């Protein structure tokens, strides 16, 4: 089964969604069973590729290629490198956890699981696409399920209910809907999310189309484009073409990341979404942005990346500070976690901007770590909301009496989010900080300030939710006692702490993906280690993995199109 592992990961959720169509909502056990088993297949296969990935060999492994359209030069070309592997794993962990988090959903459970599975599968598809067309295909495909998940199973903010009026209901349709910024209804959040992300996605698509046109290779294959596309020094509109493409691709994908001025859809979306959707949304959907920038801009336009990446270094400061302060003053649990996510994504941009082996590896590990931490926090915020039907922090309090397990896990989640030693977040943060210090000391200081801010707002929220006097209105709230309810939290905690204590395999895998990329961008090869201690294994240094060597394992060479061959 080894070579087909990526197909299992990608198509198991789709198959589950397809199977669910034929099941009735009157059999809730069967519905959940199908969803959970589809996610389980995906999870097992992801674990297999994560541990089966050979970091010494590096490059793209588990490659699958099927011709899809000859006229347009598109192939379903799947493969993971050291950057994609941990993100695929994170997606399938969060999908599996998300299905258990939403175990008690009553209203149209079948439809919920269908859209959740499609959302997760599309996300996973982006992480393993080696074809620009399919990268965009899965990217755009992941946006639409969000609309339905938010709209059908989401919740309104507190303020919205006060603003509702009979006239307002009508106004929120057609033209009036657009100008109705005041009401943060779930419909508004869903529409804003989809339109915002689609608007920037088409900018990225324009960039992709320009790459397609000016490479003149008649292919969307990333590996061919990065070796052969020559997009430099074509003058257009007073600048050069590669810069225009880079800007389109960077901001097109950075909107979902979300980088600072483009973040406004994200907290609104988080707040309106049901718990499992928020988990996937903050945990992996946001990483689509960073990942796609790495895959498209870094791989195909390395020179331009070196030139223009300081833009990200500037904007990431605003992300960190702005997100942190808003999170500190927010009174809604999900807004706090949502803004904290967009603040933490600033660290990833910092790690990417420094263009250094350590910092970029740190950024990739941070994506994985943040997926676990924010997944936990959203799962618990969702549990509290289910029990109390409010997300208003001032009205809550003292819940640790009623839910000791949840409050205990919440502490772990906060610690992970802050980056306590012992969690994988610490490993990632320290790498970003160390790696970026030489190039961007100011940003590193801001990032440290951001960690302090994180501490402040997460502790403030924890105190507001779980300690202090209890509101008697919520005395009926109860803890997560069933295995089904505890499993997802325990799983994410185990993974977060497990990789915090034993990060070596994760580190090796990530380094094997980051090294050739940074070598291409900076033309500096890492100092070869001798195979002992902290660093890349001796035999796996960049000298072996120079970009001239086709980085393909157990598949056809990237440069010889052989569309019908399946790697056996």
């Amino acid at each position, binding site marked *: 089964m080894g070579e087909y592992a990526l197909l299992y990961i990608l198509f198991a959720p789709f198959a589950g969604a397809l199977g669910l169509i034929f099941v009735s909502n009157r059999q809730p056990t069967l519905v959940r069973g199908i969803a959970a088993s589809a996610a389980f297949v995906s999870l097992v296969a992801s674990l297999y590729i994560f541990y089966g990935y050979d970091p010494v060999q590096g490059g793209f492994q588990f490659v699958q290629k099927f011709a899809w359209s000859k006229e*347009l030069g598109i192939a379903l070309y799947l493969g993971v490198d050291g950057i994609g592997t941990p993100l695929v794993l994170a997606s399938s962990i969060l999908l599996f956890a998300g299905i258990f988090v939403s175990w008690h959903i009553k209203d149209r459970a079948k439809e919920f699981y269908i859209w959740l599975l499609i959302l997760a599968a599309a996300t996973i598809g982006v992480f393993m696409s080696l074809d620009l067309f399919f990268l965009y295909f899965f990217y755009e495909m992941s946006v639409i399920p969000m609309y*339905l998940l938010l709209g059908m199973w989401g919740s309104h903010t507190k303020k919205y209910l006060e603003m509702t009026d009979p006239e307002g209901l009508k106004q929120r*349709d057609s033209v009036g*809907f657009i100008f109705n910024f005041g009401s943060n209804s779930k*419909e508004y959040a869903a529409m804003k999310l989809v339109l915002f992300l689609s608007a920037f996605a088409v900018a990225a698509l324009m960039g992709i189309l320009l790459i397609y046109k000016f490479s003149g290779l008649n292919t969307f294959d990333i590996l061919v484009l990065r070796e052969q596309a020559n997009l430099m020094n074509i003058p257009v509109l007073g600048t050069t073409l590669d810069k225009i493409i880079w800007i389109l691709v960077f901001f097109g994908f950075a909107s979902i990341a979300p980088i600072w001025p483009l973040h406004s859809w994200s907290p609104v979306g988080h707040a309106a979404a049901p718990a499992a959707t928020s988990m996937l949304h903050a945990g992996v959907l946001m990483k689509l942005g960073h990942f796609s920038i790495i895959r498209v801009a870094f791989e195909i336009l390395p020179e331009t990346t070196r030139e223009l990446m300081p833009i990200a270094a500037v904007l990431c400061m605003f992300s960190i500070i702005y997100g942190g302060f808003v999170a500190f003053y927010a009174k809604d649990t999900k807004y706090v976690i949502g803004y904290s996510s967009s603040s933490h994504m600033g660290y990833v941009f910092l790690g990417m901007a420094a263009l250094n082996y350590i910092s970029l590896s740190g950024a990739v590990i941070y994506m994985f770590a943040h997926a676990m931490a924010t997944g936990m926090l959203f799962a618990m915020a969702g549990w509290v909301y289910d029990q109390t039907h409010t997300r208003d922090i001032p009205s809550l309090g003292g819940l640790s009496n009623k839910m000791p397990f949840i409050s205990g896990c919440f502490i772990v989640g906060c610690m992970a989010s802050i980056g306590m030693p012992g969690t994988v977040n610490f490993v990632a943060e320290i790498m970003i900080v160390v790696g970026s210090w030489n190039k961007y000391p100011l940003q590193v200081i801001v990032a440290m300030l951001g960690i302090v801010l994180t501490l402040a707002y997460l502790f403030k929220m924890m105190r507001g939710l779980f300690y202090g006097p209890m509101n008697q209105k919520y005395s009926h709230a109860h803890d997560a006692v069933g295995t089904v309810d505890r499993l997802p939290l325990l799983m994410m905690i185990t993974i977060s702490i497990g990789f915090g204590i034993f990060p070596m395999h994760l580190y090796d895998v990530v380094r094997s993906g980051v090294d050739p990329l940074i070598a291409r961008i900076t033309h500096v090869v890492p100092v070869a280690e001798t195979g002992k201690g902290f660093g890349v294994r001796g035999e796996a240094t960049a000298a072996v993995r120079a970009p001239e060597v086709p980085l393909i394992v157990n598949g056809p060479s990237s440069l010889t199109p052989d569309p019908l061959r399946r790697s056996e």
Partner: protein
Amino acid sequence: MTFSLNLSLSDLLLLLPEIFLTCWLCVVITVDFVSPRLPKERLAYLSVGGLLATLGCLAWFDMNQVTGTLFGNMFVLDRMAIFFKIFILGSTILVILASIEYVDRFTLFRGEYYALVVMSALGMMFMASANDLLSVFVSLEFSTLGFYILVSYLRDDMASNEAGLKFFILGVFAAGLFAYGISLVYGETGKLVFSDMASAPATPGLIIGFLLIFAALGFKIGAVPFHSWIPDTYHGAPTPVTAFLSIAPKGAALAILLRIFIVALGTFKPTWIYLLVAVSIISMTYGNIVAIAQRNIKRLLAYSGIAQIGNVLIGLAAGTKMGNDAILFYLLAYLFANIGAFAVVIAVSQAIGRDEIEDYSGLGRRSPFLAFSMLLFLLSLAGVPPLAGFIGKLYIFIAAIKEGLYTLITVGLINIVISMYYYLIVVKKMYINEPVDPSPISISGSMKVVIYVGLAGTLLIGIYPQPFTDWVVAATLMFANFVAPAATVTPPSLLIGG
């Protein structure tokens, strides 16, 4: 121009689908007259049987590459003509299946309804094969004749009468423009067959003549600024007729536009590209922006259709073989999504009796199947992967970017986002709003067939487009000689691209 009329039997083979359908049309009318008590449903199935047989015959032609010309090049049966005939017959069959229930609303002449639909389809089949200006004119009017009656079929309904009148007056006006255009073109060149005009010099008379012809065909496809009849006619016409009107005539008129622009005017591409770019940009933007304000689903689909035609014209503006392939592919995607969406509209209006978007509230609870189908059809129209519309749009954009039409693509991409807004408003009604009346909606068997075919097409083209791209690439092969070489288009594309 002289031609002999000594047709051999093997020549008539090329006309076999039309001849057969004409006979079948007579059979349908005769059966209706002879046994007036026959349930009208049977007539529908009788018509569908005839259309299916014709479709099979055309499929056989396509597979065995039976092609040729008749009547001194007036009538051409090439693979593109076969493609468009299959397109028209497919949409006709689906429209007839979707109208079986609806026909009960007509007070009189229920049987003739099917005959008129088949008659219009026959006219459009001739349009797909028309290769000179005279046969274009005759077949265009022949097909429109049936539509004039069909649009005003709800004779007690003011809106339907208004729709018919509007369609008729503007349609006749367009026919006048067309005839005048033909006279100018013939006066300048002395030629009627498209391929003979290829080397004609660009005189003012010729340019004005072709502009008039373009206006008349623009009226048919509903491109801005010739769109003014579309919203009212779509709104007032019986919904199955609206569905028919929104698909088949557009396909047939695009066949003619392709022949005119690529075959007759291929050498003037640097000139007409501006016209097409302008019309395309205006159509997309106007259609999408005005659609936002619509409260009636039929009007919404009407404006969305205007915008879709703007998208198709991007492919025509590209003017390459790939652009033509993309148009044909896009039409296939549009066929399944649009017929499916209208089928859902018909099913809902059968149950509720109205077509306001407001009435779609809670459709997700009342009929999960209808709501889910509508969701997929609307998302396909919006161009969301993995549905057919996405591949269609991307195909057109790729064809256009190879020609350097950057402005056009930018506008097209922005319009995708605008269109997503109003399609999602309908989705919001169906899924997020709660129903006023929670009673479930029942769907008849024939309607289910139409929706299933629409779903299958929308998903299959989106997930595995290779067979369909192969088909459209083969269908436009004969244009390979006429397409202007890429080098000649560089100056305008640089200007437009900026």
